[in-house]
């Protein structure tokens, strides 16, 4: 069921990589431009609405929130965001000739656990607790982070290492879809990083526990990233417009 790209990506060779890069520059250059500013805004809006919906369900339906029951709230967030993000971003997949819509969805689903692993490793390197009582929370948190960071990118970019590097290491997004991937992801990570700051303070507030403040930070950063990406997409579209004129 998975697309050809996946099979090829699992046994990458330098030849292949170069080929895919050429392809992505040749064929992948056009798809990003297809998405209009309004469409980008709608995608962002849907993601944010999903996030709000998750909080609403947790709060109204089950009457708990991030502070009282972090792991279940995080679970709601990622389970509600998951279809939204994957289904939306798979529409903007690169290399349309090589990869079907379902293939992109599959890549996104594969990206979820991998991204979660990456995020949790990062968090542990920075000092997240690893005791058994925090295991569930860490897992849920990293799944949420994965949805903010890795999943959209894996749906869109697939296995194109150069694009990954360009967006996440060099921060040089190209085209409006890549702005939608890059900025919220960076926002979530940086926000989470700042969110860890109040944890050592002796205020003895319940939200200072791992992963509550970090989740708040990450969500806040994500929202900032979303807003920024909207701004960039608008500005980008306008400048494109000017150029085209």
């Amino acid at each position, binding site marked *: 069921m998975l697309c050809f790209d996946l099979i090829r990506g699992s046994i990458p060779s330098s030849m292949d990589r170069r080929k895919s890069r050429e392809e992505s520059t040749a064929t992948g250059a056009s798809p990003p431009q297809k998405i209009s500013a309004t469409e980008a805004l709608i995608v962002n809006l849907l993601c944010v609405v999903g996030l709000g919906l998750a909080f609403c369900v947790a709060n109204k339906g089950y009457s708990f929130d991030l502070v009282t029951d972090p792991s279940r709230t995080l679970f709601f967030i990622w389970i509600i965001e998951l279809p939204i993000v994957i289904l939306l971003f798979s529409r903007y997949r690169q290399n349309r000739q090589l990869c079907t819509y379902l293939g992109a969805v599959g890549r996104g689903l594969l990206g979820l656990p991998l991204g979660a692993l990456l995020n949790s490793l*990062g968090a*542990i*390197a*920075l*000092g997240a607790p690893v*005791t*058994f009582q925090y295991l569930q929370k860490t897992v849920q948190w990293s799944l949420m982070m994965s949805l903010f960071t890795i999943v959209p990118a894996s749906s869109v970019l697939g296995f194109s290492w150069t694009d990954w*590097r360009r967006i*996440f*290491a*060099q921060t040089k997004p190209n085209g409006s879809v890549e702005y939608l991937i890059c900025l919220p992801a960076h926002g979530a990570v940086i926000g989470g*990083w700042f969110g*860890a700051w109040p944890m*050592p*303070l*002796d205020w003895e507030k319940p939200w200072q526990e791992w992963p509550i403040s970090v989740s708040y930070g990450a969500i806040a950063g994500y929202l900032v990233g979303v807003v920024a990406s909207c701004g960039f997409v608008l500005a980008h579209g306008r400048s494109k417009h000017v150029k085209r004129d």
Partner: protein
Amino acid sequence: MAESGSVGGRGKWGYIWRHWVTLFLHLLAILLFTRGFLLTRTELPFYSHTSDLSHSPCFSSSSSSSSSSNASSGWTEPAVNRLVIIVLDAIRFDFVAPSTFFPETKAWMNKLEVLKNAASTHPSSAKIFKAIADPPTTSLQRLKGLTTGGLPTFVDVGNSFGAPAIVEDNFINQLVQNGKKVVMMGDDTWTQLFPHHFERSYPYPSFNVKDLHTVDNGCIEHLFPTLYEEDWDVLIAHFLGVDHAGHIFGVDSTPMIEKLEQYNNILERVIEVLENQSGPGSLHENTLLVVMGDHGQTLNGDHGGGSAEEVETAIFAMSFKKPPSFVPPEFDTYSCQMDLNGKNVCISSMQQLDFAVTMSALLGIPFPYGSIGHINPELYALGAGRWNSDASQKLSESDFWMQNYANALCINSWQVKRYLDAYSASSAVGFSHDDISRIASAYAQAENYWSHSTIELLLDRNNGSDTLMPVLKRQINAYFNFLSTVAELARSKWTEFDLNLMGTGTGIMVISLIFQLHAILRANKQHGLTSSSPRGSWITPGTTFALFLLGIRACSFLSNSYILEEGKVANFLLSTSGIVALRQSLIKDKRLIESVGFLFLSTFCRFVIEVGLSKQAATSAFMKDYTSWILNIASALPVWDYAAEVVPMLVLILLAFWLYKVTSRSFCVCPWKYVILGTILSYMLIVVHWITDSERFGVALVPESIGRTYIPRIVYAIALGQMLLMAFGQLFKDNYLDCKSNLVAKASAMLSTWSSTVILLSGKQGPMIAFASLVGGYFLMRLNNGEEDAKEPRRSFSIGPFPVMQWSLFATCLFFCSGHWCAFDGLRYGAAFIGFEEFMLVRQAMLLTIDTFGFSIILPVFGLPLLVATKHQTNVGKHVLFTQLSQMYTIYGFITSIMMTFTILCVTIQRRHLMVWGLFAPKFVFDVFGLILTDVLICLASVYYFGQGKDDPELKSS
């Protein structure tokens, strides 16, 4: 142009002199600041004895009157037989005093009604005092102050370093020495301070602030039965509920009011019990009840500082002697107000300093040696009823009491003078000459009155009240004058920060920062001149990020929570820098393995730091309920134990093997090669030492005594020998090495020399941490090296501060990894005695310093040249290399000084904070040591590394 010329002209001193200037500035700044901030007092090991009184000009209790009491017991005549002290922790003055004394009535006032009622209905036998405590107003320091009658400071230099037990002479000690039996219940701080003094004790843990009731209920449970028992003379009950309620809920809260109401009930019952038993011949015939706070608290429940809310607490004293005694009106300092019920309540004022001596005088025991308070007349008067029965006197009760009081003050003044003389004679930092002469003249005046006029009048019993009173008053005033001079002087010396000195110190620190920054930028400009690259290229993302990290780390010192978790904060920043480095290498698509490896290493450090913190939790009160799963695993598996013995040795052998490989490579030549070979020998000796030390192996390779003491000494001796060899190696100029390889060889030799001693002192964890630092250092060098390749060679002449910042963060993490933390119980005292049995201050202090700062300062500072030398693939010439090295040392020093400056600012801002003595001051002391050591080592390292020949062909060719 002129600058580079001057550097070339002065040779190696051109690189070095700035470091020396920095060292000098720092020493000056620290010296001034410390003199203003760290108040020190020397504890004297002397004790008062009953027989001492014969040296005084005063009457002893036996000769002053013909009273029937047995005269052998003490200095003054006992006025009360039994004493009940109820300490209510953190009682504010307005908890006790009626609300009419204050402009506004608040919810927490008028709760301890029973004390107020007693004071208003029995004005002659019950009294409320406003008691003024002296900062630091923390329970431990206050209890110490209350019992010794002195002014405890942060650094009470004495032989109790590390243990909290009071070794100075004190009230409790005097009680025990004079055969009084003391029963204690409540706060376990008392049993820490007086481990062997109590007849019986019922201590309860005091550090769980959230627990409002355990200590109080325990107190109540034992207090009432004990009141009916006969086997004690002094009872101490210490209630903690109000203190904890304040810390958690604040003063204006329901739990606080409930606590106060509970105390009101308890006190009511206590007074009832005592009153019922106070008939002639009963148990409490002559008992004094004292209800007191040890300090106050702010509305938020904080205490520790010197604000009025914190220092103002209350003492309530009630005598159950019947009939009530007479109060001499001359010394009353009270103010009276109507309370809400229209009764007259009078409140006097006293210093907590006077508590120990007044109680001693009432019980008739010798005054504590170091007490500097005076006998409070009103509190002392509560016991005056004792002398009413003396019928042989012509004098009125009041006159007789005055006479007695004058004599007690005479003893008191003599004792204080004796203490001050002994203190000035034995303390390194005594009082100034002016102060001593001022005190001496005040004492001489009082003494003069006493020996020339008063004593004759007192001896001549035929004098009437008219002749006696004026003389006595004059005498008492003279003593008051002397004693208040002393107290004032002592306060200025032991409780007040000198803000001017602190400010000056901070100012000089800032000047040194500017100086260092100037030096760094200047070196940069030189690079610009020599490599003709455009100026301003130095401001790169790396620099910005390094400054950002530095800023966060420095600002984190402003909060006590971050200081407590400093290891984790440092590791967080180290990991962050690792992630940024990973990103950097992703961009360039090289050195990926190194950056991932570095990230894993910092993750590893993180776990080690957590194990270290759990060790801290075992001793530190702050983190008692922190349990570590790692320790649980470690204790569960016996295999773990065995591995813990064997793995360090294997790692050490691995290190030795690695060193051997290094020496066999080409760049190591004559002197350096032998140095490293010596280190390999040391490593082998350490392995042998550990094998003989552990019981597990049971192989007696060498007799145990030799293994235990001589092998470490041989290792130290080898290290010293290596040092000498390197010093001599400096003298021979070797031409067959280029400058860069020479620098690498020198650095490796230096590091290996230190490593053997550091590993030996660190114990079993040593090899692992040495290995980790080696790997970490290697990764950092490689990463830095990678950075250079990507840039154009021209721009790479100056090294950005990012690698140095990483280097410094990594060093900080190693400090915490090696099981240290910034508190005095974080020192590994055991390390000071490896190889030596007996204590010698200088030697042991050096070993302790090497152990504490070995991995975090000594090795990183000496290893810094490797970062410079490995950066360049090609030989870049001596001048460039040395300028860079000098700049890097300046950057490293700059980072350390920024930390120090912020620590200084922090302790200045937080000098009245609750944690100032528990947390900020130890951190300050550690940072001071770290800074000075870093500066000194940088100076030494620069002398060592820059001591190369003058010729510089590479520079000319470039």
